[in-house]
Structures are given as structure tokens and as C-alpha cells.
């Protein structure tokens, strides 16, 4: 069974060393932006975009982008900007935006036309991820966490209607109201670009994904937990009278390949930056009051045995949050994941933290030449 493998990086501004990071409660939200050097960022963007381009050439079937705010861990602040760049820089890879933060958006028709424009420019290569935004984004956008889920759903409903219903039409919702929804730009893909939703375990998200038959992407989740979530999806789909195939399931993991296990274990340590400081922060940053339902709180606790930033390099590998090794080793591990989970897409965070351009390019090359082909049978 084939497997779509996506290349992903958060495009980190990784020039924040341990000493500096430890002086602040978090690298999120309130970490002073006076530490940002735009000139360094110019070079980084050039490098990261080159790596995306190379990932397509090397054989990745898709390129994944995301966005965060107020943090050096992710310089991408707008997936639709990066999506636009990739749409023009590449020619065949799917562009997975995972995704646009719906609850923090005040203008869903604008989002709908932006994504449609990307679909048009890319010739129908957009995969449109819809996300709630992690808790800290409610602070950054000052969007009331109590309304996060209902805004997510209403924003989504309006976008889908915008894509699928000839305009103009009116919308008088609870959170959004429009006199004339009628964007000139509509997507190439019909009825609309594939929609994905990431999950960290909230049962409401699984239920919502099943209802819309969207692909559910488990992010950095223990295999056993991901299995439960996917199982729940399959069961709910079966109850609704349809069978959820591998195309409905994606799994995201950090991955690094080098020529030998020994070399990979050494260069892969760069991922420890990504697994460390950017995940630190007061509880309220991650879970503003009202962001999680009671069920969501329990699910989030079950997501992994201990916080990733308290895991050692070895533990991160044991728990399948990070796969590191020679092509042979990585193929073995990813095959196991593919078979265990029955997924149709694998999202590999291949560049992370201060992983150098050279190490990133080599990893991309080896994945393209050896790992990705070996995962197709």
C-alpha cells in the first residue's frame, strides 16, 4: 500500500541558546522579540525554502507547513504566505497547510479566497488543514478560548459553503456575519481542496473529523494513543455506514537520516532543541481557561507518558516522537508505524532546531533515495 510522505519544518529561528532560553519562563508568547535579528531570518528563510524545494526534487510527495505566533520555534506566521511561495516554487508536490487557525480568524471568506487562490496558483495541489491553534495562540491573538471550538466550527462551515455554494449568499451566524459572500476566487479542486484536521487527542475533534470525513492527523502522539484515536475514528465511521481507509489517517513525527546509525545519532541531537525550550511554559499558556473541555483535558494527559521536554534523547526515540538512524533503521521503524497505524500519510519533521543545512540536505536526499521508496510496498 502506498504512503504519501510529507516534508515538514517549522522553520525555527534557532539562535536561542540554552543560557538565554533558561532566563525566560517560555519561548512562547512573552519571550522578548528584541532577540530577533531580521537579517539572520532572511538567510534562514532562503535556506528553509531551498530545502522545501529540494524535498520535492528528492521525492517527497508533499510539503507540509504550519504557523505559530510570538515564538522563535516557528518563523512561519502565515501558512498562506508560505503556501503561496511553495505554490510557485514547486510543481508537483502536494502543499499541506496544517494549517489555518480558524478560531482566531475574523474573516472566514478572506481565508476561503486565500486558500482558493493558492489552489489556483498551484494547479490544485493544496491540502487545506484547519486547526484550532494550540492554547497559546488564543493569547497571542487575544481570541477568547471559551469560543475556540464554536468559532472553529462556524468558520469552517462558512469556508466550505464559500467554496461549494455559488455566490452571492448571506451569512448571519453567531460569530460571523456577511451581507454578500461572493469571492471571485474559488478552488480548482472540486468540490473543494481536501481538508485535514490535526488532533492531540480531544474526542470532540475525532468525532468532528468523522462527521466531515476529513483526514485526521495525529501529532507527536504515542503510538498506542494514536492507535486508539484512529480506532475510534474507524468505529465511528463504521457506525455511520462507511469505511475509513488509510487516506483518513496521518501521523506526524520527527525524523532524521544519516549515512550510518552512529552518524545519525550524533547529528540528530539537533532535534533536542526543538523538543526542549519551545515546549516549556506555564500551564496557562498552553491551556487558557476554557480552551479544553473536561474530556480534552483527560485526552491531553493521555497523549504521552511524560512531557516531551522532560524526555531524554533515547526516550524520545523509544516513544516514537523522533526516529533517527541510517536509512535501513529508519525504514524499519517507519514501516512498523505505517503498519501499526494503517496510515496513508506520514508527516516527517525532517528539519528541526539547529539541524544544519548540510545535515538537512543529506537527510532529505537519503529519504528520497532510500526511505520513501521502501515505504511504498
Amino acid at each position, binding site marked *: 500500500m502506498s504512503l504519501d510522505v510529507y516534508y515538514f519544518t517549522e522553520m525555527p529561528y534557532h539562535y536561542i541558546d540554552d543560557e538565554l532560553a533558561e532566563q525566560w519562563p517560555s519561548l512562547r508568547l512573552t519571550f522578548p522579540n528584541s532577540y530577533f535579528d531580521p537579517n539572520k531570518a532572511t538567510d534562514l528563510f532562503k535556506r528553509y525554502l531551498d530545502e522545501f524545494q529540494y524535498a520535492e526534487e528528492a521525492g517527497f510527495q508533499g510539503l507540509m507547513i504550519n504557523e505559530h505566533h510570538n515564538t522563535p520555534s516557528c518563523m512561519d506566521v502565515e501558512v498562506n504566505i508560505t503556501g503561496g511561495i511553495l505554490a510557485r516554487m514547486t510543481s508537483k508536490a502536494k502543499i499541506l497547510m496544517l494549517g489555518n487557525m480558524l478560531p482566531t480568524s475574523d474573516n472566514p471568506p478572506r481565508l476561503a479566497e486565500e486558500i482558493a487562490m493558492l489552489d489556483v496558483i498551484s494547479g490544485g495541489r493544496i491540502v487545506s488543514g484547519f486547526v484550532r491553534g494550540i492554547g497559546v495562540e488564543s493569547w497571542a491573538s487575544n481570541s*477568547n478560548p471559551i469560543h475556540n471550538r464554536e468559532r472553529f466550527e462556524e468558520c469552517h462551515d462558512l469556508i466550505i459553503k464559500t467554496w461549494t455554494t455559488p455566490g452571492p449568499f448571506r451569512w448571519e451566524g453567531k460569530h460571523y456575519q456577511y451581507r454578500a459572500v461572493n469571492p471571485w476566487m474559488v478552488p480548482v479542486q472540486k468540490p473543494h481542496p481536501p481538508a485535514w484536521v490535526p488532533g492531540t487527542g480531544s474526542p470532540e475533534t475525532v468525532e468532528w473529523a468523522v462527521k466531515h470525513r476529513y483526514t485526521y492527523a495525529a501529532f507527536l502522539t504515542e503510538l498506542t494513543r494514536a492507535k486508539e484515536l484512529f480506532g475510534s475514528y474507524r468505529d465511528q465511521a463504521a457506525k455511520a455506514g462507511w469505511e475509513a481507509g488509510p487516506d483518513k489517517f496521518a501521523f506526524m513525527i520527527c525524523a532524521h537520516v544519516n549515512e550510518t546509525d552512529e552518524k545519525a545519532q550524533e547529528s540528530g541531537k539537533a532535534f533536542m532543541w526543538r523538543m526542549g525550550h519551545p515546549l516549556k511554559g506555564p500551564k496557562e499558556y498552553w491551556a*487558557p481557561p476554557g480552551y479544553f473541555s473536561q474530556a480534552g483535558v483527560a485526552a491531553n494527559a493521555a497523549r504521552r507518558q511524560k512531557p516531551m521536554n522532560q524526555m531524554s534523547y533515547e526516550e524520545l526515540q523509544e516513544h516514537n516522537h523522533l526516529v533517527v538512524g541510517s536509512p535501513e533503521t529508519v525504514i524499519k521503524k517507519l514501516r512498523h508505524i505505517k503498519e501499526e497505524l494503517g496510515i496513508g500519510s506520514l508527516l516527517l519533521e525532517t528539519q528541526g532546531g539547529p539541524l544544519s543545512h548540510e545535515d538537512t540536505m543529506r537527510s532529505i536526499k537519503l529519504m528520497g533515495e532510500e526511505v520513501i521508496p521502501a515505504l511504498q510496498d
Partner: protein
Amino acid sequence: MVAFTEEIVDVGGTKVHTLKGGSGEPLLLLHGAGGNNGWLKSIDALAEKYTVYYPSHPGYAKSERPDWLETIPDMAAFYTWYLETLGLEGIRAVGFSMGGWIASEIAATCNHAFSKLMLVGSVGIKPNVGEIADLFIISPAQVLDLMFHDPSQAPEYQAVYGREFTPEEMMVAEGNREMAVRLCWKPYMHDARLTSLLARVNIPTRMVWGKNDQIVPVECGELFNKAIKGSDLVVFDNCGHSPQVEKPDEFIKTALDFLA
């Protein structure tokens, strides 16, 4: 101690949990963002002279929230309905912190609801110099640290805040916090139109503030005092955000003097 009962007031189908006790003319107490702390010493002293109604706001603790209730003005509209349901009009009212904001909104938009109004460390007006502390982005323990100037002078501190909480109480506290977020997230703890509307208030009004309030600066008390004709402002030295808990004797005296 004055006996009190727990009553359910049905307001247009919404059940509001209310502590009621004492005798004499009615007095409405409106609690702050954290919730109803129960029948404390200061409440009890007020019930010696008045029939105290001390509801948990809709959406707090055991009180239901009607779907439409999302803002402080909604809360004010709801409470005028609550008073109507109980047949109360032109009564005395005391609002603590966020409850002061609700009470001000009621007084400013419904001039027959209250006869006298006391606002204790009330939010609702944005300070010009300082800021109202952001209680949502810090932990409940940090909120508690900010609340008192010197917890050791608050006789009920241990009983109310210092003990172990049951899982049920923790759930209620979390639910209360979520309701406060629903009501006060943005603009945070204030409403730009309130100062102008307060010019309508024509009943005796007293502001009571702790001089060392680290949550709502005394400046806010001064702004309320300026906005409401004929009001006064009483400031307690060495006192934080909750004078009724931190300095109950002084609070009771000030309140009874004013309400008489």
C-alpha cells in the same frame, strides 16, 4: 451567627443558586470573578441588619447559565430579571470586584433597581496609569498571592483559601474561572462606555478599596468616584483586593455606616 438558607431562584427558566439569610430590608451582594465564597464573617454581619441575597452568578457553581448570557451587560440584564422575579426594587446592593462591575452596569441602566450602592475593588473602568492585573494568564495560586496584602491579618484566610480542596471544589473553581473568561476576556475587565453611563447614577454610592490592591489599582476607585455624582471613596491602609476578607471589622463598620 445568622442562619442562612440555600435557595433556588428560577429566573425565566434559569435556576440561580442563592444564599439567603438575616432580617430587615433586602440587600443584594454580587460576588467577584472567582465565585461565591460563602457565608463569611462580613456577610454574616450584614445579615444582622439586612435580609441578604447572595446569589452565585449564572454560570458559576450550581447556578445555570442561559445560552445567551456572554457579557457583563447580559449579566446586568439578567439580574434586573432576577430582582423582578423576587419582587425586589430600590434595594441596597454591594458588588465585589467583577460583581461591582455588574452592579454599576445595573445602576447605570436601570435607575430604580437600587437605592444605595457600594462598590468594593470594582473592575469595569480601565485605569489611566496602571493596569488591572491579568488573572487569566497566571495560576490560581498566583492570583491568590496578588489578592491579599497580608494574608495573616485575614482571620478566615486559612478556612477559605488555605485548606485542601476536594475534586468537586476544584471542578467548581475551574468552571468559575471559565465563566469569568467568557464574561471578561476582551476588553479585559472593563467597558469603555461605563464611565459615561455612570453619569446617570443618582443614588448614594460608596467605593471601598484596599490601598495595596494589586489587582485593581486604587486609581480605578478614584475614576468611579469621579464618574458618579455625590459618591465617596473609602481607602483602607495595609489592605489588598478583598477588604471584606482581609479587614472584615473595618469593612463591616464602613458598610453598615453607609448602608444605614
